[in-house]
């Protein structure tokens, strides 16, 4: 081997000065276009509403980096796509760093400081790494092409459930064209890179510095051998090298220039979106500012800058589309299409030099880019979309904030309007008298303490469904009997309790939510207790995550974790194991919202049940369809309901005895779905509390009330 500094990449050798200059002109133009595009995008985000992020930049950066480099969010529920994307990501990143290294050496360090490092052994290793990176990139790209072209995954079908065939924005073929152009462009850039390397080797076959070290670029060397075998000589190699050099270079520069204007921008927007992620986005909805002109989102500029950034982060991967319970039963909603519609709307209105008239910024309606009220009211706010989004798009807060505008305009189902009025008037959704809230406790053989009048250790927040729904009242009484049996010092607020407001808030009736939260916090402040327990995951969520914003910070537990402790402490004992084949339905507000996956499962095992999981469980649990106020809106007649879809999933488990729920609304929804799907008699729907009662029989004197 000769002098180490001779072993390096051949860059502009044999180029006339004019051509080198031309290249630099083109390169700087491409970079200028790139930065102009970045400016246009940043200006667009700046036109959104202001938002102050909580939490430090350092932690956000670390969190983002961990997700980006591990690809944890990209491979969830689709490991093949995640793996292929990881190859593309690392291949692209290394090739980009490689090019950046060349620029650092050739255009900065050497001309300014005379420093040369990109040579000798470092160059050879560099060369090998980049060749391998290229293989990763091409491999990943080819799998993605196979996935789009042959697998025909439903989640990659852009046909929209909220539009009809023939509508201008029904299946958006421009997205398909862009997807393919993206894959092909990268593929061609990668492949011509190898070919260029091979042509250079053939051209410089006689130079030992180049030829003898060629196997440090294994793909290029192998291709060079092929070209020579096909009869290519040094002169031909030189001509080919020049042509490919320009083709490869220009294509790469065009690609760079177009990044901010195409889907390629996700390499920046997705990372930025992950960085500004709100880990409690759907759990704790934003308040309406005191001085807001209109509540919620009426115009595109009512989205805050982070939400506008979210729109641009979407990569159309379709995971939210796949997970959405409304979409699954044919409702006119796909979270993906809400995001894409708003993105199209934002691009059309906010990327121009001046802001269009206010009238042209209305995001509500049926025109392309607008969202219809039917779409918004289809959402169950189950958080399945937010949970699975690999780039931290937060759909649910956008949908709820858009509903706030609909509520203000009264654009909602008349039955929903009536329910909201009922809740305002009576504090519960059943239209029952406030006085009757504690009536379920009358048949009990013991008295439940009134927590407003005497101190208790455990304050039980009962909730609407558990208080008033006749079927759930039986469960509520059973739970009371279990607490009594375990010797827990507990009490309830009787008519001091109101609907917790979780679903009212998710409907978008923020004013009513404020009234309800205020009333409950006032009642809780008047009571003396150590901890709150509830059997209702909806109440649990809002008291835990949202009441603090209204001045009420309490320790609250769902009954599953509370019961688990009673067993652990020996206050309750399993004496008659329940040997049933059971499956467990994770309630959205206990599971996804508050990560309470383990306690109910541990309880089931403790009781002696054999737990068989459904395919969609834990973070991918399938909503019963009652969330977000949908329990007060009739589902379309004839169409499948989410609860029916779910019961059919459970029915496929061989020999299933019991479908276990741990949420009052779930009990109502699934007992109904069990009957309407014709599965009655095959298995039963039960509250976990009822199974606990079976395993822990009541002492003789205090048999549970019928």
């Amino acid at each position: 081997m000769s002098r180490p500094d001779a072993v390096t990449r051949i860059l502009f050798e044999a180029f006339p000065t004019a051509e080198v200059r031309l290249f630099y002109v083109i390169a700087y133009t491409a970079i200028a276009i790139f930065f102009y595009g970045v400016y246009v995008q940043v200006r667009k985000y700046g036109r959104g509403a202001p938002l102050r992020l909580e939490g430090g930049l350092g932690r956000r950066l670390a969190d983002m980096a961990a997700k980006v480099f591990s690809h944890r969010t990209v491979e969830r529920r689709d490991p093949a796509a995640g793996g292929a994307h990881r190859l593309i990501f690392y291949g692209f990143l290394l090739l980009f760093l490689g090019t950046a290294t060349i620029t650092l050496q050739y255009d900065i360090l050497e001309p300014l400081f005379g420093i040369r490092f990109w040579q000798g052994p470092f160059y050879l290793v560099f060369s090998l790494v980049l060749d391998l990176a290229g293989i990763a990139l091409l491999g990943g790209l080819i799998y993605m092409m196979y996935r789009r072209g042959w697998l025909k995954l439903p989640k990659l079908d852009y046909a929209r459930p909220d539009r009809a065939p023939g509508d201008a924005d029904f299946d958006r073929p421009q997205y398909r064209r862009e997807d393919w152009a993206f894959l092909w462009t990268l593929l061609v850039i990668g492949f011509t890179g190898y070919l260029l390397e091979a042509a250079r080797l053939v051209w410089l076959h006689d130079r030992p510095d180049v030829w003898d070290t060629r196997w440090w670029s294994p793909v290029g060397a192998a291709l060079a051998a092929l070209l020579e075998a096909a009869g290519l000589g040094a002169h031909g190699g030189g001509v080919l090298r020049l042509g490919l050099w320009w083709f490869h270079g220009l294509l790469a520069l065009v690609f760079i220039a177009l990044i901010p204007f195409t889907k390629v921008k996700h390499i920046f927007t997705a990372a930025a979106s992950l960085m500004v992620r709100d880990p409690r986005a759907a759990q704790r909805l934003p308040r309406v500012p005191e001085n807001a002109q209109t509540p919620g989102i009426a115009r595109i500029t009512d989205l805050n800058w982070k939400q506008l950034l979210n729109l641009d982060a979407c990569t159309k991967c379709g995971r939210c589309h796949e997970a959405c319970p409304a979409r699954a039963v044919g409702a006119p909603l796909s979270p993906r299409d809400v995001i894409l519609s708003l993105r199209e709307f934002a691009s059309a209105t906010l990327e121009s030099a001046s802001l269009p008239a206010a009238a042209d910024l209305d995001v509500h309606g049926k025109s392309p880019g607008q969202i219809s009220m039917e779409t918004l009211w289809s959402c169950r706010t189950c958080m399945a979309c937010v949970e699975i989004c690999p780039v931290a798009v937060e759909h649910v807060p956008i949908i709820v904030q858009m509903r706030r505008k609909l509520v203000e305009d009264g654009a909602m189902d008349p039955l929903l309007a009536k329910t909201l009025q009922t809740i305002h008037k009576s504090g519960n959704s059943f239209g029952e008298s406030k006085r009757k809230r504690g009536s379920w406790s009358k048949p009990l053989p013991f008295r439940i303490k009134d927590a407003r009048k005497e101190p208790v250790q455990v304050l039980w927040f009962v909730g609407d469904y558990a208080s008033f729904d006749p079927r759930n009242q039986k469960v509520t009484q059973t739970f009371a009997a279990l607490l009594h049996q375990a010797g827990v010092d507990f009490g309830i607020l009787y008519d001091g309790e109101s609907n917790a407001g979780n679903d009212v808030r998710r409907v978008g009736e923020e004013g009513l939510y404020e009234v309800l939260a205020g009333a409950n916090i006032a009642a809780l402040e008047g009571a003396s207790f150590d901890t709150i327990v509830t059997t209702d995951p909806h109440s649990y969520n809002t008291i835990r995550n949202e009441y603090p914003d209204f001045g009420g910070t309490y320790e609250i537990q769902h009954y599953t974790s509370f019961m688990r402790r009673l067993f652990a402490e020996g206050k309750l004992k399993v004496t008659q194991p329940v040997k049933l084949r059971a499956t467990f339905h994770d309630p959205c507000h206990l599971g996804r919202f508050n990560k309470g996956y383990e306690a109910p499962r541990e309880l089931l095992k403790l009781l002696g049940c054999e737990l068989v999981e459904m395919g969609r469980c834990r973070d991918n649990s399938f909503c019963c369809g009652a969330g977000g106020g949908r329990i007060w809106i009739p589902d379309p007649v004839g169409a499948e309901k989410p609860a029916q879809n779910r019961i059919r999933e459970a029915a496929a488990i061989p020999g299933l005895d019991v479908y276990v729920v741990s949420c009052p609304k779930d009990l109502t929804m699934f007992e109904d779905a069990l009957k309407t799907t014709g599965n009655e008699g095959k298995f039963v729907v039960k509250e976990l509390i009822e199974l606990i009662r079976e395993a822990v029989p009541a002492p003789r004197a205090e048999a549970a009330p019928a």
Partner: protein
Amino acid sequence: MKILVAVKQVAALDEDFTIRADGRDVDEEFLLRDLNEWDDYSLEEAVKIKEAASQPVEVVVITVAPEHADEALRKCLAKGADRAIRVWDEAVEGSDPIAIARVIAAAARRESPAMLFAGVQSSDQAFASTGVAAAAFLEWPHAAVVTSLKLSPGAQSAVFRRELEGGLLEEVEIHCPAVLTIQLGINTPRYASLRSIKQAAAKPIEVKSLSDLGLNTADVGEAGSASRVRRMVIPDKGRAQLIEGDVAAQARRLAEIIREFQGSAP
């Protein structure tokens, strides 16, 4: 143009209510108050006319009630009424619909609207007479049970349809000013969000006394009424009973009951 809408805050009964000591009404503590359902529709009709008009239309709501009715008036303001008037005097207590109508008519004379709307009836008392009685005091033409309405602001007359028995409708033209009592279903009342109700709390409610309207205490209360409530009673519950026991026992008991009803016939 101005539309005056007479509204009422009605009362529904809460659980386990008791009758007041004087026996003439339910104990206040057990009353759940809300805007009369019919008034939701008459107010909506007025607000719809206002929103569709090219010239300014003022919608004014009026009620004859003590302070607790302000809540109902705020709901009306939240739904689009421009002004709210509440007339009250201790002497109004005990008034029948005729006396209430006299007060509303006196207010209408001062407001001189092109139309006075009222609900067909109130859900708690169901006299269905306040609106038409007000028309009699005003000597204005009137129509009851209106199910659709065409009214262009500034026009001398309006065309409407009213509900007759047997599913029949009658289309009528009426000269303004007139009194119309509005039936449920004429429109879809809008939802008043809590936010709009809160904002309406800032709007003033005009409180007027009898003398402001040129009336005196003899015009209202029992003195000004054509009828008075003597007492309120809770009727005896029906005599349903669940027959228990096995089928044979149930059949035997059923036969006994039938014989009891038949008397001593063989």
